[in-house]
Each structure stands twice: as C-alpha cells, then as structure tokens.
C-alpha cells in the first residue's frame, strides 16, 4: 500500500532531480538559443565540475571550496573550449557541430580517465548538511537533497531575473533575436558569446559537483544527464529558460515517480515478478513516451516558437 509519506518523498526526489536537470538544460538552451549551437560536450563540463570538486574536497576537506573549484574549473574550461574551437562552429551546420563536440567528449572523457583513473571518486556531503530533517506531515527527508532543491530554485529565479531585468540579459535577448543588429549597436558579440558559454559551463559544472555528492563521480557521468537535458529542451522548447524549467520538473517527476509507481501499478494486473521486470522497463521509457506525446501535440515544445 502506498503511503502519503512515500509519495511525498518521491515527489521531493523528483523535484531534486528536476532542478539539477534544469541547471544542465538552462546552459544548453541558452547556448542554442543565442548562438545556434548544439553542444554535445555539455555533459563533459558537468563531469569536469564533479571531478574538480572531488579533487579539491579530498585535498582541502572543504565542500564550499569544492563547489567554487567546480564552478571555476567548468567556467575556465568553457572559455578555453569556446575560444579555441566552439567559436569556429557557429557558422557551420549542425552536423559539423555534432561531430566536433562529439570529438570533444572523447577528448574530455579519455583525458579525465587518464588523469584520474577508471575508478569512481567520492565526494562527501558536508557534515552540517548530512542527515535527515523532519518536514511537516512527519516526513523525514535528507537535508542535503532539500538544500539542492532550494539552491536549484534560487538559481532558476536568478537566471530568470538576469534574463528579463538586467543589462546583460537584454544583450543576451538581443543577440538571440538579431545578431548583426546587436553587433551594429556596439556590443562585442564575440565576448558576449564567450560569456554565455562560460555561464552555461559553470552551471553544468555546479550541477555535476552538487549531484556528485549523492552519486559517484566517474567518467561518462555527464552523458545520461546530457541526453535527459536534451529531452527537457525538446519538451520545453529550444531557447526558452522557462520552458527548460518546466520541462526539467516534468522529466524529473516522471522519471522518479514512474520508477517507483509503475511496477506497483502493474502488480495490480499481473504477478509480482513480471510486474517488477515490465514495470522497470516501462519506467525507463516513461520520459521518452512523454516526449513523444508532447511532440505530437506541440512539435516545437511547450514554450518554443520556432522549429
């Protein structure tokens, strides 16, 4: 029998997963929206953030320093990659972008394996944030995951305010609408692009470090997240931060709740063993079925204006 407590816990888990997906998807959707670039190597920046955090935490013992290291490492890697390679790809077709960023994944992944080895690293949750906390309704929930939800929501709000209210946000939206006109108005487009790429990279690196503390830090950890972030963007509509936020929560909740409740629901119609097997298979497909359904309904996503 499903209890309220279990349901509430799973909804919170789904939210936590969703806001972390948002951090990935936000960078991807900004980079696509403004520069028209599809960046497969975004998952590598997530991985890089997690490894930087694990290395700094192991050396200093400070979680805060580890997070700063993750942000810095991913942002610096973002700037270097943008200036050296990505910049040459803005005028190319999507095929070239896919291949070049696929090549970057190979370089990042094997480079990390070479530097850190094939064994996973572990990043500990700081002691002040570990342990459960009692929520109203008698739910015991891990404090760290609750902090992740809060941090993710704060960053989402901050990004939205930045895009809609600040000067830099106006420039980003201007760059999205009309690149030549923005440049003609005296805005250094190429610096703006580097900045946006670095911002997206930093968000991915931060997500990698934050999630790295509840999962293991290993080579290739960014790729499943990258593909889920693509699903998020397809659902939300490319280029839309709000769409990315809604899409991320939908995907996070569908994946988490589907994994728990589909096998349970199937137990009502079939025997427990096959319910578990079929339920697990169906749950792993749930978000893609959601994506397919949304595509039939709105081919350019919930908030997307153009194909």
């Amino acid at each position, binding site marked *: 029998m499903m209890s309220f407590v279990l349901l509430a816990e799973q909804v919170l888990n789904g939210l936590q997963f969703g806001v972390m997906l948002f951090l990935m998807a936000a960078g991807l959707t900004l980079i*696509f929206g403004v520069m028209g670039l*599809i960046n497969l190597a975004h998952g590598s920046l997530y991985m890089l953030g997690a490894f930087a955090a694990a290395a700094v935490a192991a050396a200093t013992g400070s979680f805060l320093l580890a997070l700063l290291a993750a942000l810095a490492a991913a942002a610096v890697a973002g700037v270097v990659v943008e200036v050296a*390679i990505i910049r*040459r790809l803005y005028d190319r077709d*999507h*095929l*070239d972008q*896919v*291949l*070049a960023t*696929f*090549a*970057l*994944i*190979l*370089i990042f*992944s*094997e*480079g990390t*394996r*070479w530097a850190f080895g094939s064994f996973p690293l572990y990043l500990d949750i700081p002691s002040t944030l570990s342990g459960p906390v009692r929520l109203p309704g008698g739910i015991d929930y891990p404090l760290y995951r609750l902090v992740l939800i809060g941090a993710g929501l704060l960053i989402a709000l901050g990004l939205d305010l930045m895009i809609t209210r600040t000067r830099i946000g106006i420039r980003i939206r201007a760059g999205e609408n009309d690149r030549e006109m923005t440049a003609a108005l005296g805005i250094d487009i190429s610096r703006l692009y580097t900045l946006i790429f670095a911002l997206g990279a930093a968000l991915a690196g931060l997500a990698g470090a934050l999630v790295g503390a509840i999962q293991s830090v290993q080579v290739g950890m960014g*790729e*499943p997240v990258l*593909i889920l972030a*693509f*699903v998020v*963007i*397809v659902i939300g509509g*490319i280029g839309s931060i709000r769409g990315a936020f809604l899409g991320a929560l939908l995907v996070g909740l569908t994946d988490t709740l589907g994994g728990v409740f589909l096998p349970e629901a199937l137990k009502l119609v079939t025997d427990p063993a096959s319910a578990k*097997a079929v339920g*697990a*298979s169906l749950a*792993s*497909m749930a978000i*893609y079925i959601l*994506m*397919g359904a949304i*595509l*039939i309904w709105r*081919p*350019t996503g919930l908030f997307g204006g153009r*194909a």
Partner: protein
Amino acid sequence: MSREHLVNLAVVLALVLLPLAAHLMGETYWVTLATRAAVLALAGVGLNIALGQGGLVSLGHAVFFGIGGYAMGILAYHAQTYTPVIESLGLPGTNLMPLIWLVAAMFAALAALMIGALSLRTSGVYFIMITLAFGQMFYFFALSWPTYGGEDGLSIYVRNRFPGVNTLVPIQFYGVVAAVLLLALLLSDRLARSPFGLALAAARQVPARVAAVGLDPQRLKLVAFVLSAALTGLAGALFADLNRFVSPTMFSWHTSGEIMVFVIIGGVGRLMGPVVGAVVFVLLEHLLGGISEYWQIAFGVLLLLIVLFARGGLIGLIAGREKAHG
C-alpha cells in the same frame, strides 16, 4: 572517368584483394579486422542514405544497429536452445543468416517508421536531439529487459549458417559480409540516381520546390530514413554474428556517434565515404589502441581537425570537391 570514380574503383578492388592477400599469407587476424571494417562500413552506408542523401542528421542509428543485433541474438538463442521464440505460436528460432537478415532489416525498418514519423515532425536541431533521445530509450529498455541477458548481453556459441559457405572460416565469412556490402553500395548508388533519389536530394536542398511540384518532402525523407535503418539493422545482425555476442552497448549513443563518424571521416554523401571511414576507424583503433589505452584522445583530436579543416572528408581530400553538396 572522374577522380572520384577512380577512388571508388580502387576501394572496391582493395575490399576484394587485400583480405584475400591477408588470408593467403595466413594473417587470419587481419581478415577478422577487415570483416569488422566491412560490417561497420555497411552500417555507415545505411546511415549515409539518411544523412548524405536525405540530409537527416540522425544521432539514433544505434537503435537500428542494436535491433539488428538483437534480432540475430534472439533468433539464434532460441535455435541453440531449441525453444520457441513466441511460445503460443510455437515459432522456432533460426540460425540461417538470410532469414535472420530479413527479420533484422524488417524490425529495424519498423522502428524507423515509428521514430521517423515522430521526429520528422520537427527538423534541424530538434531532429538530432529526438533521435538521440529515442536511441537512449531503446538502450535503457535493453538494459532493463531481463529475458535476453539484460546488461550482461547474450552469447551465441556457434556462428550462424549461410547455405554453401562455411562461416566459421574467417575468409569465407568475410566473403559473405563483403558481398552484402557491395550489394548495399550498388543499391545506394542506384538509389541516388533513381527518380526517388533525385527527388530526395531536392527535398534536402529546397523542400519548398519539391512540395510545389506535388511531392511530399517529409514522406520522401521518411522513406529514406526507413531504408537507411533497414541497412543499418542488417549491419547490426552481421556485427553480432562477427562477435557471436550482443549487448545493450550496441544501442548506446556512442555507437550512433561512431557510425556517423565513419561517414564523415570518409566523406558525407560520397558513395565510398562510409567504407573509407570505417577502414580508417578500424585501423586507428587497432594501431593507436596498440600504443595506448587512451587512444581515443588522439582519435578525438583527429576527428576535430577533420571537421574543422577537411570538410568533405578523406574522399573529398583525394578526389576534390566536384560532388560536394551544400
């Protein structure tokens, strides 16, 4: 005869003669490497129909490769255990290659019809992301489906049969694979020159004009996508037969990326592009892999250089750009 024709002729001759020479010198290992290259090339020839002729950047072709692999795995598994595939129908497994190929290509085509009908509602970068996402869906499904080995995969103990050929002898199996590859190349070439192929090329370049003469560009692309998937599915069945093993890795998106890499290294839209690309990939994998286990770093750098500076791939470098398309 243009330079590209000469290059194509040289590639076909090399496909026939080099493995034969390796066999005569007793280098069985090189014959197996050549078989691997030919199977991967076949997957690339399949993708090239969607990518080169149809302009569809599919990052989900591992789905069809994997379906082909599992079609072989499942049929051969039931044949080797003498159990029916579908119990209620009493449908038996088989170890006969042509039958396995037919099933592999049919199911790959069926999957492509469904994925294509959904993802062709969009275009450009949406199409890339959606094909990638559906690929991941099949990957997770294969991982979590316990009947045929789940994440451990499925081993087949004896290579499947082809009438009149001893497929356990490497050079004979290579002969079968090479014959299929040459037929696929012939088909791909014929297709590109056929009225369908011309309409498809037009649908890639100016869809509006194709629509204006009364053809449906989306339908042309869907047919190309399905044909392309059937060939890649066939390659998947052969790949599984080569390794006598199938696992969810065949569905992994890295496989999609690699198939695309063969096509690009060789030259997208070029008839022999996938063959040259697959041969170069297998050679690099073998030679660089022998030097360092981190060979993919060097491979990544090479790929980056080709994308940035050698557009048109290796065939483009050798044969010039006369057939390059926009």
